């Protein structure tokens, strides 16, 4: 193919985004958009048909991700993305269901669902954007805010210890646990692709700048300054003991794939147990069979890509 004939390929992300909703609501220098880039590329790489993907978010700046991704997408209530996704996934096991939400949403109000989802090993891909604050509501302290940080509800500096998210996720039962920052775009894309392939509950923490409400108040400068800081402070350590993965301000940030184990998912366990007890009387569960299968009416709309 000669260069003269080559067409400029469109930006791959545009296929997967609601371009009619751009510009998005995120601030200049916000890292959320960067992670969306990686996510879209990971989906593309995964070869999962787009109509078999659903994105579920809670409420927050990150929660708006669902609204920008051109798949079936759900912007639920604050903290409840995981149980919503649990219902969706169990009804439609053939779909790949991604929960994309913020640290406040998933870890503060939603913490219980996270640990129980991990325990059950529901086949959900959790992407947790950790910007160390509740951004959407104006930058309050939360369970990931490092002690000493200034926030609107800790104007004299926070003092509560924050969670070590990989440790919490592992102890709850997640089968894949990794942490990257939005600086690590290639590793992040690969990690997302790994999650999409993995069976069971995966947990991916992404450290991301919120210059507007966290960075500015905490001497991290602009978004790009924060990204540079991530570059400097991060140390890749695959397989690290999650117990050692706490983020301590001023100390190095451990990143990498910390946990990657196999155990039966909720549905595997369900089918196995029912089969063992009920034998032939139990029809293996593969999703609810809709009484009026809409496929019949809607077959032609199916996107095969």
């Amino acid at each position, binding site marked *: 193919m000669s260069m003269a004939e*080559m067409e400029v390929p469109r930006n791959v992300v545009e296929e997967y985004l609601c371009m009619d909703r751009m510009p998005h609501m995120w601030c200049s220098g916000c890292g959320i958009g960067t992670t969306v880039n990686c996510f879209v590329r990971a989906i593309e790489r995964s070869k999962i048909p787009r109509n078999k993907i659903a994105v579920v978010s809670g409420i927050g700046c990150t929660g708006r991700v669902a609204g920008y991704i051109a798949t079936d997408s759900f912007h639920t209530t604050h903290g409840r993305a995981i149980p919503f996704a649990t219902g969706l996934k169990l009804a439609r096991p053939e779909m790949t269901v991604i929960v994309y939400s913020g640290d406040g949403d998933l870890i503060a109000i939603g913490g219980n669902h996270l640990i129980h989802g991990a325990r059950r090993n529901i086949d959900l891909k959790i992407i947790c954007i950790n910007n160390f604050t509740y951004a959407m509501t104006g930058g309050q302290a939360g369970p990931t805010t490092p002690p000493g940080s200034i926030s609107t509800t800790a104007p004299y500096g926070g003092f509560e210890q924050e969670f070590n998210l990989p440790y919490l996720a592992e102890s709850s039962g997640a089968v894949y646990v990794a942490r990257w920052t939005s*600086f690590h775009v290639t590793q992040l894309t690969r990690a997302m692709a790994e999650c999409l392939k993995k069976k069971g509950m995966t947990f991916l923490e992404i450290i991301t700048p919120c210059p507007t409400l966290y960075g500015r108040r905490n001497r991290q400068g602009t978004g*790009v300054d924060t*990204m540079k800081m991530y570059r400097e402070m991060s140390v890749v350590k695959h397989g690290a003991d999650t117990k050692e993965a706490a983020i301590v301000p001023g100390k190095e940030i451990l990143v990498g794939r910390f946990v990657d184990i196999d155990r039966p998912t909720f549905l595997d366990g369900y089918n196995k147990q029912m089969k063992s007890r009920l034998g032939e009387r139990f029809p293996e569960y593969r999703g609810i069979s809709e009484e009026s299968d809409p496929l019949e009416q809607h077959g032609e709309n199916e996107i095969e890509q």
Partner: protein
Amino acid sequence: MSAEVNSAIKSSEEAKERKGPKGCPVITAERCKGCGFCVEFCPSNVLRMSRSFNSKGYHHPEIVDAEACTGCDLCGMYCPDFAIYGIRTGGKKRMKDEG
């Protein structure tokens, strides 16, 4: 550079590019919020921030060293506003030939 290339770029909301031998960044300045990620993390120092503003009042990237672009699309992966991406202008083999 063929007319098709340009038109394809145009269709992508007035994107701007200046092709190098291996690759080039495609910039939609209007969508840019001026964060500077692309400039900072382009491994080949292809970009710099413009002096001028877009209509929203943001500085946006402009090409300073078109030749250096490898088309690696790191700018595309970093850009939080989907306002830039990199394309390869030569086949992989070709790039090797050239190198």
